[in-house]
């Protein structure tokens, strides 16, 4: 496979279409196991999705045949991935280490990693956000947050 052909296969829309077809094929056995009336709408939607995914694949490959076409997901995909990873990391950290410790670390860490590096501002924002959340949610509304699996074990 040449470099150009390889890049055509890795176009985001082509990958989306292929991914959709794979997902549809995963859901088909479950759909076939449902009573006919329950499977009516899911079946119709899966059929429609597979037809649409094929159409998208054809459309995207026709676009790719034009030499100047180049598709990218974002201007800074690594930064977007980094941001998403930090958000997921924050959620995992909340589950394992508890809400307040994770928030007290998560807010300044995320802001620092993404370019805001003034210690006073970071400290103040973290104190206002964490303190405000505690006063509004934990104190006034008696909302419970995860205390951390690590400590409960």
């Amino acid at each position, binding site marked *: 496979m040449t470099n150009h052909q390889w890049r055509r296969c890795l176009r985001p829309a082509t990958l*989306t279409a292929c991914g959709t077809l794979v997902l549809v094929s995963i859901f088909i056995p479950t759909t076939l196991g*449902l009573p006919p009336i329950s499977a*009516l709408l899911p079946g119709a*939607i899966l059929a429609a999705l597979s037809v649409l995914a094929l159409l998208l694949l054809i459309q995207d490959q026709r676009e790719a045949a034009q030499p100047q076409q180049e598709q990218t997901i974002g201007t800074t995909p690594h930064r977007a991935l980094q941001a998403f990873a930090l958000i997921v990391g924050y959620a995992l950290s909340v589950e394992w280490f508890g809400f307040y410790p994770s928030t007290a670390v998560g807010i300044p860490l995320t802001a620092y990693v*993404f370019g*805001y590096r003034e210690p006073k501002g970071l400290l103040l924002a973290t104190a206002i956000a964490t303190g405000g959340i505690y006063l509004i949610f934990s104190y006034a*509304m008696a909302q419970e947050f995860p205390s951390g699996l690590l400590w409960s074990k």
Partner: protein
Amino acid sequence: MYMELINALPGVMNLSNLMAVVAGVIAGIVVGALPGLSATMAISVLLPFTFGLEPLLALGLMAGIYNGAMYGGAIPAVLLRIPGTPAAVATSFDGYPMAQSGQGGYALQVAVVSSSIGGIASAIALMLLAPPLSKVTLLFGSAEVFWVAVFGLCSIIFLLGGNVIKGLMSACLGVFISIVGTDPILGVDRYTFDRLELLDGINIVVLLVGLYALPPAIDLLESPLRADSVKSKQLGTESIWQTLPRMLRFWKTWLRSSLIGIWIGILPGAGGSMAAFMSYNEARRNSKTPETWGNGEPEGVAAAETANNADTAAALIPALTLGIPGTAVAAVMLGGLLIHGLQPGPMLFRESPDVVFGFMWQFLLGAIFLVFLGGSLATNTFAKLLNLPRPLLGSVIMVLMFIGVYSIHGRMFDVYMMLFFGAIGYVMDKLKFPLPPVVLGLILGSFAEENLRLALRIGRGDWSILLANTTSQFLVLMTLAVIFGPFVKRHWLARKASKQGS
């Protein structure tokens, strides 16, 4: 017909409801003023926090945010030429040159008065048009309701423009998500993968926060905006009441732009930015001095701001009466109604008239409050808020999203689902898959299925019942017109152009 509307007024006028609208307007202005944040995002983040509130309080907050955010977008558009919301792009054409020449304060005052007038006109249109429309839709049976849902889905996909295949795939995804959970009629589990958390289906708030709040939060983090700081000389110090007489010459523009905004708002899929652009162009076409436009003409600010606010409540006319939201914000608001146990559609007017009519009053009040709050917030102090570091804002939103979703059921599963939908939403957004059809699919999918199955039961399995009466046939024709209309129009325009060319 309008007695219920009047009866709902005392319920809205209590202090807590009024405070909710005021808080919503202020929050909306702040959110709208911050580039990268939108009314849709603000309402999505707010929704989970309204669970414990009375429906009217929650709806008052939402109405206030919607009104406030539409105006808030004008603040950075005027001061920095960075529209806070997409609907404020047209505002920057004349607002920014005005700020450059030291008239930023006047530009913002024109924007706030025009926004308020547009909002009031829109709320009045909602009050006048929604009740009679709901009376008509009350006569619909299950087959007609099914076709209304199909029409709603098709209209938003085809009128949104862009790639139809991607629009249809988005809608299919939304409908598929709506199917997850226990079948409401047979009690069979569908795509729950033996997870107890999925038996009740996927909560709309989880989807909304994931789709509409996570991608902007990532955007805030990944692309720090280097904006010029706001200089105090860009704002005037004159009181809004002193400048009001100078604005009265815009009355024709206010009227025309309100009508354009209302019309665009009712059309599914159009939205505030289209209303603002259309209104700006019309006002410029009708101006005696079109050459001054783009160089700091206050009437340009008035035209754009009136129309984008006139779109707000009008977008709720199809949403409240038919259950078809015309814009992404309207779709999110329908989500807000659903989490308070209110099913949008004709029955809403019969079952909860105090809430639905109260909501309309809150829109009107929000638009009125806007002129007072917006005027006083358009100050040098408030404008400094625009210099808030984006990474810091992104990290605080990350925490708020977590709290909002976690507090629905108090479980981490919902947070991970939100992150999953957020990742999907981010990729869809970057690949230009429209997001409103996903939400609409989730709202209308189960609704359509339920009514389809009910119609088939009534017809004892005979599918012809779906086309048995004139209303159903009319709705099918409307759906076909929405699907094929754009193709026919494009073909007709191409033929006309080729004829003219030859």
